[in-house]
């Protein structure tokens, strides 16, 4: 039950405690940093622990409300329903803004408090860092108190609450009813939470530099690197899960469509990858003394920007899950974290003498490495700008422009090719002279351009372009996708050669496993880049309309159609709709119906008729021997003892000695369980299933079911495709209901599974580096 104390729900009080604790910890830790006075340290630790603890309890409490279907809570009522299994009841917790902010806040508070409680980090600068971290928690907690996920139904939706406690919730966004979506948000937010401490340490670093005091950045470098690698692992996994979800579940026929949501999460990923590269160099050589900490600090604002994109509704997205604005809280956080990340770093850079006096030639390894790092930043910029400029241009001129896949693909492609060349050169230079390396890279570039032009058949080109398209799009778009192959092979080969050479020289299991990880990450990336490019260009789609498909049943009748523009023939053999929940599952037992306290509401009830009484105008039937009876005008319904029935009707209390509740129904709304009334009930979900066989010539390519789900009260559908997986690619069949019946769309995605394989290789590689890098962890500060 949603208990209310002094006008606020108990959960909101927990959030208020979180807010109070985090404010207190922020202020005290800030004071300790400013004065060096440690006398309040115990209080600040207690305050931070209280904040983290109360947020953890709040999240558990909210989860328990979802599990117990506590519809007194407006957020619970909004985001779940009785028919959902336990897993998706839990998913409902972070289905909307308030719950996801709570999850993020909780994880952030736990991470920051952990650094405070572990006395490993007790230098004075650490206090500023922890104060900033608790400051971030404060903003989250403030947002949560303002828009609490514990707001009672009677406050948020008085008109709904006026009819008593609802029997059922309004449901979960159908897109989120999926196992991948159940784990996607916690993984994503864990990745985000791990970026908070690097942000605060980065900011603290520049503040210390400006004040001429000792920075904690170098001390924390080892553990921070490990945290960021953990974050990278989680973020990569989260993006991949999202891709699999979009491919397999949405049935939109794509794992990546440059939707704002996808693009926005790619930006912090690219930033994080660049940061890991700069930190690596900084740790080894001291290069990137400004860029490494500044970029580390900039990750959190990038993540917040990504969240703003997903949640705010400012940017158009085909899957804006959480509707409504997230409000000023996130914008405030975006503004302050960006200022803190960029401001001190810029001032420091502006004021210091040129410290980086090391001379570097254009073809030195350091320069080539730098080119690759800038490549990541440029890719991140392309994605960031693609999200941003339509808003900028619309605000500036009122003209609305679109950003399509072509923008992202054609601007990113040359950068990726350049990065593959730079990365390959960097690896090759370890064992070969600059002269040989430059020669090889030049040859690869020439080969790439040669096949790019020679194999530029229309169906192999990167984009179909029109003569009126801008010159850049025509030039890059007309290249063949094969352009990417020579650089990718060169890149992967150079990293393998480097790996083999290093393996011979290195001793020690950990160092070797670490090296293996680094090689796997780079080879996996090359595989991923090639397969993504090829899938994008070589995928083909054709569709055919099948009128009358919904009239089919399993009598053996079939509809056969050739798919124009493709080698396929489609057979549809059966249509079967399936309701969730079924009417019998949705109907209440007499005991449940007896517990409904609202008079005159309409309910659905089921039970065995155990007694029948006939009056002049009314016939009533007892259900399961209980005090709940069903009634109807005499002569309209035949109740028979012993039959099990489902009935829909208005509930009333006849004020009789033997009857607590009477469900008054009529002939259209009652029937036996074996043949329930058809119009008495609209299910939550109707799944339209079609049995489909796909032939290529005489060969059966795919055989199975395609399905489309429609949802009560929502203008949306989801599709379950039929996917025939193969080494060379996937055949992908989607069926969508149309005005005329069914439309079957057949797509071929060559090399689709190589994408997942490439990602898996990268994840294994990063896992090895995460576990075995000898220089990471608490002991791995910077070597001078």
């Amino acid at each position, binding site marked *: 039950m949603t208990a209310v104390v002094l006008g606020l729900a108990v959960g909101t009080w927990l959030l208020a405690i979180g807010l109070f604790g985090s404010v207190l910890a922020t202020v005290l830790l800030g004071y300790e940093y400013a004065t060096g006075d440690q006398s309040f340290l115990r209080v600040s630790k207690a305050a931070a622990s209280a904040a983290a603890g109360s947020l953890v309890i709040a999240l558990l409490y909210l989860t328990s409300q979802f599990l117990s279907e506590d519809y007194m809570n407006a957020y619970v009522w909004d985001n779940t329903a009785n028919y959902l299994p336990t897993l998706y009841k839990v998913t409902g917790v972070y289905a909307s803004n308030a719950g996801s902010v709570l999850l993020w806040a909780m994880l952030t508070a736990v991470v920051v408090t952990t650094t405070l409680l572990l006395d490993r980090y007790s230098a004075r600068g650490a206090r500023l860092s922890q104060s900033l971290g608790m400051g971030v928690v404060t903003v989250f907690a403030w947002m949560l108190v303002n828009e609490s996920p514990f707001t009672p139904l009677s406050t948020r939706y008085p008109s709904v609450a006026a009819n008593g406690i609802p029997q059922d919730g309004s449901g979960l966004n159908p897109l989120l009813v999926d196992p991948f979506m159940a784990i996607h948000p916690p993984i994503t937010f864990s990745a985000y939470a791990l970026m908070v401490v690097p942000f605060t340490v980065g900011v603290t670093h520049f503040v210390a530099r400006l004040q001429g005091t000792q920075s904690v950045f170098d001390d924390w470098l080892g553990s921070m690197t490990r945290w960021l690698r953990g974050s990278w692992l989680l973020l990569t996994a989260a993006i991949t899960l999202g891709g699999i979800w979009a491919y397999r579940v949405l049935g939109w026929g794509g794992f990546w469509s440059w939707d704002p949501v996808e693009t926005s999460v790619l930006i912090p990923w690219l930033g994080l990858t660049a940061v890991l590269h700069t930190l690596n160099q900084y740790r080894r050589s001291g290069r990137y003394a400004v860029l490494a900490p500044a970029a580390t600090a900039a990750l959190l604002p990038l993540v917040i920007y990504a969240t703003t994109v997903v949640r705010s509704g400012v940017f*158009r997205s085909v899957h804006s899950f959480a509707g409504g604005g997230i409000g000023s809280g996130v914008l405030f956080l975006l503004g302050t974290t960006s200022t803190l990340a960029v401001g001190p770093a810029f001032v420091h850079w502006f004021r210091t003498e040129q410290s980086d006096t090391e001379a570097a030639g254009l073809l030195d390894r350091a320069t080539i490495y730098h080119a690759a790092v800038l490549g990541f930043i440029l890719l991140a910029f392309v994605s960031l700008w693609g999200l941003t400029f339509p808003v900028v241009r619309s605000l500036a001129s009122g003209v609305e422009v679109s950003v*399509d896949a072509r923008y992202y693909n054609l601007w990113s492609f040359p950068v990726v090719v350049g990065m593959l060349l730079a990365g390959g050169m960097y690896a090759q230079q370890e064992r070969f002279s600059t002269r040989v390396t430059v020669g090889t890279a030049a040859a690869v570039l020439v080969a790439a351009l040669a096949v790019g032009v020679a194999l530029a058949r229309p169906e192999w080109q990167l984009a179909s372009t029109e003569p009126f398209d801008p010159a850049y799009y025509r030039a890059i778009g007309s290249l063949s996708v094969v352009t990417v192959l020579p650089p990718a092979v060169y890149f992967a080969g150079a990293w393998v050669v480097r790996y083999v050479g290093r393996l011979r020289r290195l001793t020690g299991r950990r160092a070797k496993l670490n090296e293996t990880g680094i090689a796997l990450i780079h080879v996996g990336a090359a595989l991923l880049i090639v397969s993504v490019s090829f899938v994008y260009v070589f995928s083909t789609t054709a569709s055919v309309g099948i009128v009358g498909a919904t009239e089919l049943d399993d009598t053996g009748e079939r509809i056969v159609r050739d798919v124009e523009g493709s080698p396929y023939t489609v057979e549809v053999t059966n249509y079967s709709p399936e309701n969730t929940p079924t009417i019998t599952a949705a109907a209440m037992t007499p005991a449940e119906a007896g517990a409904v306290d609202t008079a005159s509401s309409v309910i659905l009830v089921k039970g065995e008729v155990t007694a029948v009484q006939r009056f002049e105008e009314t016939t009533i039937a007892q259900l399961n021997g209980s005090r709940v009876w069903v009634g109807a005008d005499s002569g309209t319904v035949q109740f028979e003892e012993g039959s099990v029935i489902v009935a829909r009707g208005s509930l009333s209390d006849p004020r009789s000695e033997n009857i607590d509740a009477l469900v008054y129904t009529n002939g259209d709304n009652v029937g036996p369980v074996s043949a329930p009334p058809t119009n008495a009930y609209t299910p939550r979900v109707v799944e339209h299933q079609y049995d489909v066989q796909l032939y290529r010539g005489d060969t059966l390519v795919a055989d199975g079911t395609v399905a489309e789900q429609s949802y009560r009260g929502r203008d949306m559908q989801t599709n379950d495709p039929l996917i025939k997986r193969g080494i060379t690619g996937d055949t992908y069949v989607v069926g969508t209901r149309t005005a005329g019946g069914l439309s079957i769309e057949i797509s071929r995605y060559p090399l689709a599974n190589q994408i997942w394989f490439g990602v898996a290789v990268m994840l294994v590689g990063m896992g090895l580096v995460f576990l075995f890098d000898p220089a990471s962890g608490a002991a791995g500060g910077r070597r001078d």
Partner: protein
Amino acid sequence: MNARKTLTVVFFLVVLGVGHYSMNAAPVVRDDTHTYQGGLEWETEPSTAFDAAQSQDKPVLVYYWATWCTYCERYDKNHYRNETVRAALDEYVLLAVNIDDPGNGTGLVRQHQATYPPQHRIMTPEGETVESVEGYIERDELLATLEKGSEEAT
């Protein structure tokens, strides 16, 4: 200046260049008077569309769409970019109404009860509705409807 600094300066110039070029090269979806669904020029103001229909003696094709509508993207990609469909559409004055932001099209939305996208209506220049397509249909069906509608409406 060492090579890495030079590279960084070049990088910033490239960023500025890419930013400027790409923003100006982006396809226009909507300006003051038109939207550009499927690369076609659609009127957005009903009165302008019906004035044009009367002066040219052409029927009006009304397209109810939304930015988030995946079936509209299929119309844009599979149908409106097809030469045969474009030839058939030459017989029409095109009017697109964004159902999330209908502006002066609100009356039409209400009249046609166009609560979800995509939908099409074929109307005479005088404003009488002669054909109606709710949801997505294959290209052949759309072509047949366009032919039938143009006969009925003139």
